[in-house]
């Protein structure tokens, strides 16, 4: 109790309450944060949920195909008699993992490229920025499809990697990160360029700090807000990409459930069992819109310029 006032005071000096206030004012973002927290909790607790529910998401029951919702199967069963509710819970694990991991990977690559580009300048900068432009302009999906079709056994990967159950999942993470970095790279480069000649950076340089130290200790902390906003907004997009690739049969491979793979046969399902085509799509939609609202709210909270535009 006695520690509380001191904490508030410390926080007050760092403009945190103002950020919180701005974030809390974005009602859609707050609601989205709650929804995402619930989804993440369900994903983390999926095995426990399965135990409490008394079923297994991979359990095939051919006598019980396309069962309607019941006390035993809350949302009914799919074409193989597997429980739809549990498959949605486990599918969420995959979609969230892929979305977060690929967004993080893209942010790391983008930050590295942006810092190098902003500090090296000259020809290195020009080449990296042309590369960024090119990646942004490319029709992304056909490229991802080609990369997703590669035979991993033909790559010089460590023993056993290509055959691992999770190989298709990490492959998606890797290829999305490989194409997802340009936004962050541009933001970080912009920050680096604008800060490079500022007094505190010059002071650090005068004190003998090398370019790596200046980039990491002085410029990077100032770029954190835009990186966080851009990365949050990218998670939704990546979940959409994963679902498209999985839907097309080139993403996460069955029997692993992902919301995209659950829709693989949806074109036939809409005639026979529309509910099976609706639920996974609805989960993707809710998750993606929640990440987009969250990113929008974070932008209001973290980027003061955006707040000026507001009113």
């Amino acid at each position, binding site marked *: 109790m006695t520690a509380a006032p001191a904490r508030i005071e410390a926080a007050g000096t760092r403009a945190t309450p103002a950020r919180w206030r701005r974030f809390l004012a974005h009602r859609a973002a707050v609601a989205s944060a709650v929804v995402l927290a619930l989804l993440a909790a369900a994903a983390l607790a999926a095995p426990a949920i399965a135990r409490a529910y008394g079923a297994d998401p991979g359990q095939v029951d051919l006598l019980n195909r396309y069962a309607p919702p019941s006390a035993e199967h809350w949302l009914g069963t799919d074409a193989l008699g597997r429980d739809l509710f549990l498959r949605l819970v486990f599918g969420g694990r995959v979609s969230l993992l892929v979305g977060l991991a690929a967004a993080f990977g893209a942010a790391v690559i983008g930050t590295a490229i942006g810092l190098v580009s902003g500090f090296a300048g000259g020809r290195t900068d020009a080449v990296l920025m042309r590369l960024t432009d090119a990646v942004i302009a490319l*029709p992304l*999906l056909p490229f991802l499809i080609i990369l997703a079709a590669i035979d991993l056994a033909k790559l010089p990967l460590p023993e056993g990697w290509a055959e691992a159950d999770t190989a298709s999942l990490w492959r998606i993470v890797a290829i999305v990160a490989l194409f997802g970095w340009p936004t962050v790279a541009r933001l970080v480069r912009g920050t680096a360029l604008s800060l490079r000649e500022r007094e505190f950076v010059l002071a650090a340089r005068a004190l003998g700090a090398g370019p790596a130290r200046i980039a990491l200790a002085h410029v990077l902390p100032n770029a954190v807000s835009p990186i966080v906003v851009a990365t949050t907004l990218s998670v939704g997009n990546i979940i959409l990409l994963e679902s498209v690739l999985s839907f097309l049969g080139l993403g996460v491979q069955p029997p692993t459930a992902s919301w995209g793979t659950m829709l693989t046969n949806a074109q036939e399902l809409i005639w026979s069992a529309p509910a099976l085509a609706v639920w996974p*799509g609805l989960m993707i939609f809710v998750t993606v819109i929640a990440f987009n609202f969250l990113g929008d709210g974070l932008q209001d909270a973290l980027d003061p310029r955006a707040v000026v*535009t507001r009113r």
Partner: protein
Amino acid sequence: MLRFLISRLVQAAIVLAVMSFVLYALIGLMPGDPIDLMIQANPELTPADGERLRRLYGLDQPIVERYGRWLADALSGDLGYSRAHAVPVLDILLPRLANTLVLLGLAFVAALAIALPVGIFAAIRPYGPADTAINLACFAGISIPPFWLALLLIMLFAVTLGWLPAGGMATPGMESLADRARHLVLPVLALTLASVGGYTRYVRAAMLEQMRQDYVRTARAKGVGAIAVIRRHALRNAMIPVITIVALDLGTLFSGALITETMFGYLGMGKTIYDAILANDFNLALVGLMLATATVLAGTILADIAYAALDPRITYRRARA
């Protein structure tokens, strides 16, 4: 201007050249081996024949040399054959490129025709109830999985209501312009809905930015009417960033077309590339992707020209840094 165009064309050529090499190298990593497939298809062939064929096709040579030969052939107009269709790849790709351009063009125009008025309307009273509703709709449009949206449209308009065909290019035996148009409605609608949310947000943001400028206040102060301020002053300046972003989005629009075409069985480039990869028809996929990328890059260059036409301040004279 000419100089700028040339430098952009050179850049596009470099992108295409690098891309073709990467794609060519990737084909070697695709599942299955062309010679193995030939041996499997023909029981008379022995492994020794396989070796001979490998040498005959030059597959024993290093990749750079093979690519060099492929590039020389490609530049002289020989882009090779499709393995699955057994015809030159361009015979398949060019008609399908035309189909895709029809789909993309209609969806692009429809999306802009919605996004412009709606985005401007939202920007007039920012954060009011109408703007909030439009904003929600935009977020929904951006966040909906495009293939799922296509499914919902098929479910509603083809299965439940039975108004429109669920897919394909034409009704067999009943080909006519009206029939073709009926088959286009749902794909165009799906692709339009997939992009209109993003476009509306761009228009709104660009308009808001302009409405806060001093020149808008000046125009208002001297008594210019509300509509004229928007139309003659703010909108013109707002169009410039909108064109940039929309042009950069052409690649995304093409990705959307791939999904739409696949969902509706529409014979366009995206579906062709996807089907070619599933059928191990990699030459078709490679040339198709090159052609798609070239089209997208051409679109961005066109946007740069439109940019100069809209903004007299931009001359594209070389600015030496």
